Each structure stands twice: as structure tokens, then as C-alpha cells.
């Protein structure tokens, strides 16, 4: 990628215009998943298992089917067998087949003329269960005699003799561990536990499906990726992808949680059986019980350090559970754990095990917060024991350009040192603390992704442009994409309209995840704009009667390239567009690509807390985020991502977790007892945006959305531990857990 591209002076990129979807959202006109309706539409409802683990002996739906107003009943038997194991697992989370595997697992669904009839019909279904022993904790699930959630799902390389719940293991690292630990002056080994957190999006999962008599179907849903929804739903319904059109609604939060399906296949099957459109909207209780939270984790971490703070070796064992089905998240955790540091010797060993919990789905940097929490907590404890400054110690060990990372990649230009220096220079780091207060610092890392991307850019005859892209806008991406199109075309932001097209209108786009959209869709938009510019230069050349190669695009206009090309005044985009019908027809640009080159991103967070020593009540009093964003296309939304990730991490560190009773049932399926932070719980989250260009993007853009949830678990833990003078080894740090530590039990 040309370097001068990244040093260019931007005209639109880096400004902060209003988002194009803003007016509709603040005036209530925006259509979310539950807002979509169709003539003759039925309402769906789902019957869910009260057992964490049971065999389904029988389901009697006859009484429900006989009720007036009931138009369709669906159970697991209605869905065809699916060859693809990944899709089959997703299908089984949506509707149980032979066994129920978690509290809240769907066993049947109804479509009826009113919500009240649907709910009454659900109560009329009789299910006979044969309860089975259950397990909801990852460490217990790995014991050889643990109840087996699913049989025969372990990958081939998992050693024999373990519980069948253990489905995967992985190992990363390099160097001689033994030699590394021998050089250490201090070796500490600690065990940590991390609860499962839910993404906590405000909009419950919702969809409306309409299956027509000719075998074609339309599906409207709130999702982070309607192309993936089409792929999985068409497979589960046994239809061709082309026959299912999926349209993404506006989305009220996802954070990774809406990168799969939970209700969509059920609504489609209800619609197919009833011949009517069917809407299915989850309640909050259902969202908690039956959509995916994160993995929960148990981690052993061992680090060796010299007296002056050089890390000599790191060794970590991670045990993750993603619920009742195999999960690949362990690999990302094992890769991310030590990634911020230049390690002479490092090993991360990961295990994943099945438990009777709902199927995990991504949550912002999936797998990384749990692993990085252990590393960053332990480094802080070692700094305390050795009397070292936690920033200087991290600087001494920071990964840089050329560092062989703990997961095998050699880093290019990265921002770990710059974010640490920014934190060190921030007034927060040296501000005085009051009584019962403590300050913690922690670093974090995320890979970021690119992926399949397809963009069309159409030049309109009135001199404006329309961008058609395929990624639901979850964090202001339509604004960022419009800014990049404006920059490249040289026309104002307000002259661009970016829309998210349905699956029939554009090639495949990967999910809005992996912090990929501003990076990858932005890249494709820039390339699509360049393709349109090429057409416009050709048209100008033809009108001027000169060679196409002799025309350049400058400031939104075609100009002759140098004095030899001919003397013509600049011909603006609007002028070329106005003449387009006479010069060859409409003008458009396209770009289709599987994008590579996403730049990794680092963040450093500083957290102050005040802990009530008699009750353990913890208030975050000051919080600062420093993060490498590459080029910040829309700085306000970059800041919003950094603040939002920090807040979600603070909630996880202090209160958020799935709590299971001895009966294996979820105890806190609601926002009262699943405590996300409220506004009054938080200080202003201060931000420092560092712009270290990503060599893999024309403007230097990096993903920013996920890194900010990685440091907070340790930043808050280190602050609380320093405030109370004792170390905490479990998140969330609920007040009872803090009091137990204070009292030394």
C-alpha cells in the first residue's frame, strides 16, 4: 500500500458529521427487528425446557393444535437432518431434538393469530422429560466422572481417558520454558476464574419470516450478518440460499451476540407450516436463558520475572466452556493471552469442555478478556512484590515491530509502546489518590479481522453517490463508509448515501464482527470509488478527445494530467454524472474481495476505584483509555467504541455473570440481577486515540471495537486489589467476594 496514501491530508476522513441513521433513531422511525410486520402475520411463541439436562420422552401438542387461532406447531422433528456439523449444532440450539441441554432450551413453538393465543397454546403442550445429571462449571465438567453433555464430540487430538465433555485442546508458544524460569528472580503461579457475561444488547432478538407456497422465503431480522443468517437458515430449512432473501433491520446492539441465529429458523418453519408470515420476538428472560453469553473460564497462569522487571517465561493453562456444544473460542484466548509482550519463552495450553449452558456466541474480542485478565493481574502482583512500576515494567517487555508474538506471528508496525507511553504521560497516571482508593493499569490486545466484502458504488445523475454495502451498521459504520467515499470521490459527505442491502442485492459479506467493517468495507468502498473514478476519467477523456491515461482525478473533478495532455478546465463529478446518459450510460464502481491485512490493535486502561472497606461496595472514580485506532475515520465513534468497551468490561469486572443454582437453572435471567452498569455507576471515560497507521489499509485504518473490552477485567482488579491491600483472583468482584478477601477467609 502506498505510504503517501497514509500521510495524506484528509478533507472528510477525521471529521465528525452526524450519522445518517440518527434522525430516524431519535424520532422513533427506525425499524428494528420487532417493528417489521406483514399482512396476515401470525405471532410466534416458544416452549422452553425447565431442565438443564433431560431426555425428551414425548411431546404431546394435540391440545395446543386444537385451540382456535393456532395455525402451526413446530418441534425438532420438523427440521431435516443437516450434514454440516456447525450448522446442525446451531439448529439444535434453536430447537431441541432428543435431549434438552440447558435451562431454556426450546422444545416446541407455536404460531397463532394473537400473542395471547400463542402463549396459551404453549402452556397446553405436554412434554415428558427424563431428567439427567447436569454440570454447569467448566472445572467440574472436565472431571472424568462428570455427567456427559454430548457424546462423541471430542476432536481426534484430544488425549484419551478424559471426560467426553473435553472436546478440544490447543497449544501455542515458543522458546525454552525451563531455561526461562531458571533466569527468573521471582516466579508466581496463580489461578483465576471468570464468569460468563452476556452481551447485554438492549434490543431482544426478533425476526419476521414469510415462506411462500413456491418455496421462496423472505426473512427480516436484527442481526450482525444477514448473509450468514441466510447460509445457516437455508441449510436448516433444506432450501437453496438463492430462495431465501434476508434483510437486516436496524439493530439495537449486538456486541457479537447477534452473529448467529436463535429464533430465525423457528420462525421460518412456523411460516412454512402455517403458510402465513410469522413474527417471533424474544422476551428479556428468553434472551438471557437461550442466547449465547461468553465462555466462562478457569485459568492457571505462571510467570517468571527478573528483579528489574524483565519477563523470562510465561506458561498458562486455560479451560473454557462455551456451553453444551463444542466451541472454538479457546484458540483465540490461548493466542491472545501473552500477545502484548515480547516473551523469550512462552506457552499457552487451552482446553474446552461442554457444560449444560446455552451455546456461547461471540462477545467483543471473544476469548481474549479471560486470558489477558490472568496475565495482566499476575504482572501487577509481581510488580507489587518486586516494587516495580507497572507501566515501566510493561514498557520493558512490550511487543514491538519485529517481535515474534506468543501466537507465532511476527508483528509489523504496532502501537503497544505508544499506548503505554500515552498512559504514562496522561495526568490520570500521576494524580493523587484518596483513602480507600486504588489505581490499576492493564494492557490488552485484539487481532482484528478483514474477510469477505462486496461493495457497489453508484454515481447518480445529479452528482451524488450511493454506496451499497452488506454489513449491518452497529457502531456508526454508514457514517464512516460515507466519509471514506466522500474522501475518495472528492464530494461532500452529505452527497453520499450509504445503505445496507439485502442478501439478494449484493455478493456475500461476512458478519459485522472482528472489528472488520470500517477496515474491510471501508477498503472495498475506497476501491469501488476508485473504479467509478476510472470510469469518470474515461468519460472526461472521451469528451475532451484525449487519452484516458492523460486524465487524473483531483478534488472531485477530472483534470488533464500535465500540460501535454491538453488545456481543459476541470470537469466535476456532477458535470460528468449529468452527461453520463450521453457518454455511455450510468456510472458505477464495484469491489469484491476477501480482505487481508487487518492490523492488530493494543489498548492500555487506567482505572481508579474506591472500595468501602466495610461492605465491599466499589465505585469506579476515574477511568482512562489509550488505544491505537490506526486512522480514526470518525473520531467520535472511535471514542464511543473505546468508552463502550471499557464500560462493558467494568460491568463484567464488578457484577456481571451467569449465576447457576445447584438445580442447574439460571438464577438471574433479567437486568435486575444481571447487573450491567447504570450511568450513575460510571465516571466519564476519558480517551486518548493514537493513530498508528495500519499498513494494510489505504488510509491506515485499524479495527477499534473489540480491543477496549480486553484490559478492563485486570485494570479494575488491579485497582481493587491495591485499594484493599489484598489480591482478587475472580471476576466479577461482587461485594461479597471482596469482603471475603478483605476478611482473609
Amino acid at each position, binding site marked *: 500500500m502506498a505510504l503517501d496514501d497514509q500521510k495524506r491530508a484528509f478533507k472528510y476522513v477525521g471529521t465528525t458529521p452526524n450519522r445518517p441513521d440518527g434522525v430516524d433513531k431519535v424520532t422513533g422511525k427506525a425499524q428494528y427487528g420487532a417493528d417489521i410486520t406483514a399482512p396476515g402475520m401470525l405471532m410466534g411463541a416458544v416452549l422452553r425446557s425447565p431442565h438443564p439436562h433431560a431426555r425428551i420422552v414425548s411431546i404431546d401438542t394435540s391440545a395446543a393444535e386444537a385451540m382456535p387461532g393456532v395455525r402451526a406447531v413446530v418441534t425438532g422433528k420438523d427440521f431435516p437432518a443437516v450434514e454440516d456439523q456447525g450448522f446442525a449444532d446451531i439448529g439444535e440450539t434453536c430447537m431441541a431434538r432428543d435431549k434438552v441441554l440447558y435451562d431454556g432450551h426450546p422444545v416446541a413453538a407455536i404460531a397463532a393469530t394473537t400473542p395471547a393465543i400463542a*402463549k396459551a397454546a404453549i402452556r397446553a403442550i405436554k412434554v415428558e422429560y427424563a431428567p439427567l445429571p447436569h454440570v454447569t462449571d467448566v472445572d467440574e465438567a472436565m472431571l472424568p466422572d462428570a455427567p456427559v453433555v454430548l457424546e462423541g464430540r471430542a476432536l481426534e487430538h484430544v488425549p484419551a481417558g478424559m471426560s467426553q465433555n473435553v472436546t478440544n485442546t490447543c497449544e501455542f508458544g515458543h522458546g525454552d520454558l525451563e531455561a526461562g524460569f531458571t533466569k527468573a528472580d521471582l516466579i508466581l503461579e496463580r489461578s483465576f476464574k471468570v464468569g460468563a457475561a452476556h452481551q447485554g444488547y438492549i434490543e431482544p432478538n426478533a425476526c419476521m419470516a414469510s415462506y411462500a407456497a413456491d418455496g421462496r422465503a423472505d426473512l427480516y431480522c436484527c442481526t450482525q450478518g444477514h448473509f450468514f443468517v441466510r447460509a445457516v437458515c437455508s441449510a436448516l430449512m433444506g432450501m437453496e440460499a438463492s430462495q431465501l432473501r434476508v434483510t437486516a433491520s436496524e439493530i439495537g446492539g449486538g456486541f457479537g451476540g447477534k452473529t448467529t441465529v436463535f429464533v430465525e429458523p423457528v420462525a421460518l418453519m412456523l411460516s412454512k407450516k402455517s403458510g402465513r408470515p410469522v413474527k417471533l420476538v424474544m*422476551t428479556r*428472560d428468553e434472551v438471557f436463558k437461550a442466547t449465547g453469553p461468553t465462555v466462562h473460564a478457569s485459568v492457571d497462569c505462571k510467570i517468571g520475572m527478573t528483579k528489574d522487571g524483565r519477563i523470562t517465561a510465561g506458561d498458562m493453562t486455560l479451560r473454557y466452556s462455551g456451553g453444551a456444544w463444542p466451541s472454538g473460542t479457546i484458540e483465540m484466548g490461548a493466542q491472545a493471552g501473552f500477545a502484548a509482550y515480547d516473551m523469550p519463552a512462552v506457552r499457552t495450553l487451552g482446553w474446552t469442555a461442554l457444560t449444560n449452558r446455552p451455546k456461547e456466541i461471540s462477545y467483543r474480542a471473544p476469548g481474549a478478556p479471560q486470558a489477558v485478565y490472568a496475565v495482566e493481574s499476575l504482572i501487577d502482583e509481581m510488580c507489587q512484590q518486586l516494587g516495580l512500576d507497572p507501566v515501566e515494567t510493561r514498557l520493558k517487555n512490550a511487543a514491538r515491530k519485529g517481535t515474534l508474538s506468543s501466537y507465532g506471528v511476527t508483528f509489523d508496525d504496532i502501537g503497544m509502546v505508544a499506548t503505554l507511553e500515552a498512559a504514562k504521560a496522561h495526568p490520570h497516571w500521576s494524580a493523587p489518590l484518596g483513602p480507600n482508593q486504588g489505581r490499576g493499569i492493564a494492557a490488552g490486545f485484539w487481532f482484528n479481522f478483514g474477510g469477505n466484502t462486496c461493495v457497489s458504488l453508484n454515481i447518480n445523475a445529479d452528482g451524488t453517490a450511493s454506496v451499497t454495502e452488506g454489513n449491518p451498521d452497529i457502531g456508526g459504520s454508514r457514517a464512516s463508509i460515507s466519509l471514506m467515499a466522500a474522501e475518495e470521490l472528492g464530494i461532500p459527505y452529505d452527497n453520499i448515501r450509504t445503505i445496507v442491502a439485502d442478501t439478494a442485492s449484493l455478493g456475500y459479506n461476512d458478519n459485522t464482527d472482528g472489528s472488520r467493517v470500517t477496515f474491510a468495507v471501508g477498503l472495498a468502498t475506497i476501491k469501488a470509488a476508485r473504479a467509478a473514478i476510472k470510469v469518470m476519467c474515461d468519460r472526461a477523456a472521451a469528451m475532451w478527445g484525449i487519452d484516458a491515461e492523460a486524465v487524473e482525478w483531483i478534488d472531485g473533478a477530472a483534470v488533464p494530467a500535465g500540460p501535454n495532455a491538453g488545456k481543459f478546465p476541470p470537469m466535476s463529478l456532477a458535470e460528468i454524472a449529468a452527461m453520463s446518459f450521453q457518454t455511455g450510460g450510468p456510472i458505477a464502481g464495484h469491489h469484491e474481495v476477501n480482505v487481508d491485512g487487518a492490523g492488530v490493535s493494543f489498548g492500555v486502561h487506567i482505572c481508579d476505584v474506591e472500595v468501602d472497606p*466495610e*461492605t*465491599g*461496595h466499589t*465505585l469506579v472514580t476515574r477511568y482512562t483509555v489509550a488505544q491505537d485506532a490506526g486512522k480514526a475515520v470518525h473520531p467520535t465513534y472511535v471514542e464511543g467504541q473505546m468508552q463502550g468497551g471499557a464500560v462493558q468490561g467494568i460491568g463484567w469486572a*464488578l*457484577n456481571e455473570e451467569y*449465576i447457576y443454582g445447584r438445580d442447574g437453572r439460571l*438464577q*438471574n435471567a433479567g437486568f*435486575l*440481577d444481571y*447487573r450491567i*452498569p*447504570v450511568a*450513575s*455507576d460510571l465516571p466519564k471515560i476519558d480517551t486518548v486515540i493514537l493513530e498508528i497507521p495500519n499498513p494494510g489499509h489505504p488510509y491506515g485504518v485499524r479495527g477499534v471495537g473489540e480491543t477496549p473490552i480486553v484490559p478492563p477485567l485486570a485494570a479494575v482488579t488491579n485497582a481493587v486489589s491495591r485499594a484493599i491491600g489484598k489480591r482478587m483472583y475472580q471476576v466479577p468482584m*461482587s*461485594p*461479597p467476594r471482596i*469482603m471475603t478477601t478483605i476478611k482473609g477467609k
Partner: protein
Amino acid sequence: MRYMTAETAEAASSALAAEPGLARVLAGGTDLLVQLKAGMIRPDLVVDIKKIPGIREITAENGGWRIGAAVANAELKEHPGVKADWPGVVEGANLIGSTQVQGRCTMAGNLCNGSPAADAVPGLVAADASVTVVGPSGTRVVKVADIPAGPGRTTLAKGEIVTAIHLPAKAARSSDAYLRFIPRTEMDIAVAAAAVSLTLSEDGTITAARVALGAVAPKVVLADASTIIGTKLDDAALAALAKAAEAVCNPIDDKRGTIEFRTSTAGVLARRAAVIAYNRAKGVK
């Protein structure tokens, strides 16, 4: 489900008594409507009591205050008389839910909902408040402390409704305070709570006191207040009060807190609420 608006307390009572199925009273609706929409209850009859004359009024009575059963808690906060006399009662009532919820919810509803964690109840019990109960067998006046029977249960008979809460006359040099523990800062439910009401002599010695604890037993409980009576709330008295509070705790272990945590926190809150009430009684801000 049938819905009716009662014009008198007697009409409400008869309708509730005559309903063979599940009957519920609607005042602020902040519990009822949530339970209805969540499908937790499916009542056959809902009786709205807000149209009963006087039920939405606060009136002076025998030196104290009569608070109609449908008076919203936010109205208490804006009533200078009630707020001056019983600041602890008013602050407890206005910790419930959000600002929007406080504009609808009532202390009587909070009491009759029967939650051991009800924020309005410990303050009323510490104040030794009473309620008027209208029922099929007539009208009776009962101490607030005698209404709760356990989680979700009250001592009210079928057809009985609370129509008013009576706060007694405030004694000279007296005041009250309420504190609850929640993991967050608002929009939450008490893990432990304490209300303290006390009266001082001219030299600042405590002459009377009541200490009520919430969320630490199946229903609101009184702690032994003799631990602070006759003292000027010195450290020894405060330590004795905390111990007395811990002694009456009989909490459950659940997702919100352990037995040990709830017990020790109740002691801390009783001690801290006593200090606030004491300073208020002395006129110290």
C-alpha cells in the same frame, strides 16, 4: 381478565372478596403491570383503587400525617411537611426503581407486595407507622410491622385492602434515616437495609429508638434498640447496635448475597443509619 374501577374502598373490598379466582389491586401498578406483562401472574380481576376519594391525598392528622394508599412516592419527596418530619421514610420510598417508577409507585403497594427487600417498609416500621385496612368484616387499624407475613405474603385477609398509611406525630429532637446496600448506585434491590428512628433529650442522650432491618429475614425485623438508648451514640453504643442488628438477621444465601455478607452489612448499615438519624435529630446537617 376483568378490570374495574372502584369508587369506594368498600366497593373495592366487596369485589375483591367476591372474586373466586385470582384478584389483584391496582394502585401505582409498578409491581402488578410488570408481573402481568412477564406472564408471572394471570389475574381474573384487577381492581383500580385510584378513584377512591382521598386515596391520593396527604393530610395532617393528630400531629402526624395520613398518606393515602395511592399517593405516589415522588409526591412524598415534594411534600415539605412529610419530608421534614420523616426524612428516612421519604428517602426509603424514593430509592425504589427509577425516577419514572417513583412517579407511580406507592408505599402501600410496596408494603402489600410482601417483598422482604421492600425499601419503603423498614422506615415505616422504625417510625412505628400504622395502616387503615378496609375489608369485608369492617375497618381496622394495624401496625405496619404486622402486615408482612413472609416473602410475597401478608396478613391481609381476602378482600382486605390498605387505604391509608398513618405516620405518627414527630417528637421534638427526633429524626430518622434509611440506608440500603446495593452493588450499583441505583435501579436495584436491597441486599440488606436498615432504618433507624430516634429521639434525643436536650443534652443529646437517646431516649427512644427503633431499628428496623430489611432484606435480612423473611420479613422486616426489629433489632434491639436498647443498645443505643441512654447513650450519646458513642463508639461502644454503635458497636453494640451493629451486634444487635446482626443478631436478628436470618437471611438467605442467594444470587444477591451470602448469609454472612447480608448479616455483616446489616450491622454496618444500622450503625451508619443511626449516625445519620442522630445528626438529623440534633439539627446537624
